């Protein structure tokens, strides 16, 4: 337990929590934008337009097949060099996560939309409901129920992926942890174990409740 006290010394814990806030800030901005863009993208993918479908497919596959870290490098180093667009680490992170999140969310929306059986539409029309009524009171409520647990899971994935931003120079939780360890190299040589352990625990505390809720909703609604 030697050096465990380093966590409570000075403002160390507060600084770590601030790092977590940076991580969550990036995640939540990306998640919110991805959900909106993803819903639009998902609906576009269900349209029966060959060209549109092909374009969406290529975008989806390309963004999903590349590691997120590669996308971050492309935005952070590549954009600057190739197009002279200088983005801060945090901005390029949000940009990349929105581009990636839109693809993932869009695919979830698409699969939720096409999973509603044909007879649900037909029964609605047979009862004399208008197209708008069918969508608003029959299709959407069912789609949303299938979608919410999956969207929460995507959100936890995005929070976890946000840890990568330390590699493009954003000062978030891991970076703050490194700073604390470096600053106390002589007084607390074993700090690394506890600091990284604490970061591990904080990520778990951020993601676990969300996974739990997603699991509950999935069981209740399907």
């Amino acid at each position, binding site marked *: 337990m030697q050096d465990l006290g380093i966590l409570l010394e000075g403002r160390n814990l507060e600084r770590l929590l601030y790092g977590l806030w940076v991580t969550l800030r990036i995640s939540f901005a990306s998640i919110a934008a991805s959900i909106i863009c993803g819903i639009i993208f998902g609906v576009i993918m269900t349209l029966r337009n060959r060209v549109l479908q092909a374009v969406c497919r290529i975008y989806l596959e390309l963004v999903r097949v590349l*590691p997120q870290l590669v996308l971050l490098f492309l935005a952070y180093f590549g954009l600057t*060099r190739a197009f002279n667009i200088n983005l801060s680490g945090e901005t390029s992170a949000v940009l990349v996560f929105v581009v990636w999140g839109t693809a993932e969310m869009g695919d979830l929306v698409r699969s939720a939309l096409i999973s509603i059986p044909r007879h649900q539409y037909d029964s609605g029309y047979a009862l004399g409901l208008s197209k708008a009524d069918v969508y608003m009171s029959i299709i959407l409520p069912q789609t949303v129920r299938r979608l919410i647990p999956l969207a929460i899971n995507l959100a936890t994935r995005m929070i976890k992926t946000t840890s990568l931003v330390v590699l493009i120079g954003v000062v978030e939780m*891991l970076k703050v942890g490194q700073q604390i360890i470096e600053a106390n190299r002589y007084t607390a040589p074993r700090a690394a174990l506890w600091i990284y352990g604490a970061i591990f625990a904080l990520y778990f505390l951020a993601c676990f409740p969300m996974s739990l809720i997603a699991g509950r909703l999935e069981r209740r609604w399907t």
Partner: protein
Amino acid sequence: MDIEFMINCLPMYVQAAWLTLRIASAGIALALGAGLICALVRSAKIPVASFIVSAYIELSRNTPLLVQLFLLYFGLPKAGVYLSSQMCAIIGLVFLGGSYMAEAFRSGLESVDKAQRESAESLGLTKFQTAIYVVLPQAISVSVPALAANVIFMIKETSVFSVVALADLMFVAKDLIGMYYKTNEALTLLVGFYLLILLPVSALAAWLERRVRYAGFGNPA
């Protein structure tokens, strides 16, 4: 674009890709084994082991690989456990992937109809025979799409190995950017090599998914 520079860099990238592939395949193989064992322990509801497996799955699924690697590589030596870079990478990848594979196998095991087990039992098959000849073949064929998706996921996750001082593709690209300021060339090669690795795997996964749809035994599709 400096084509000559890119050609000169090719051997470095090939070597890095080879390293990524080696560690990824070791990690994936071990994760498949670990995942299957975890899923079987959970489905058999073995008292204490089941709980440990559940706890492991939640811990591993709710933390990023990057943080797991930091803890393994920088944290553990402070507790007297020294691991090489490669060991850290493989252990981290298995720790992460094992839980994803376990969940994939679990959904497969749950999809096997109860009547299948009961029929096997009434035919006089032992528990072991039931598992090997009846339950597992059906469960695994249902799990294949999820397993394939996990393989792609795990290969993508290997991109963070540069933080434990492994000279993987990201490491080489970053090195070239830092040393020569050849950002465009380095990033083009980086994307090219990742596509070269991941597109065939992704195509193979799509092909597998189409193929195993035929194997819907006893379950109306």
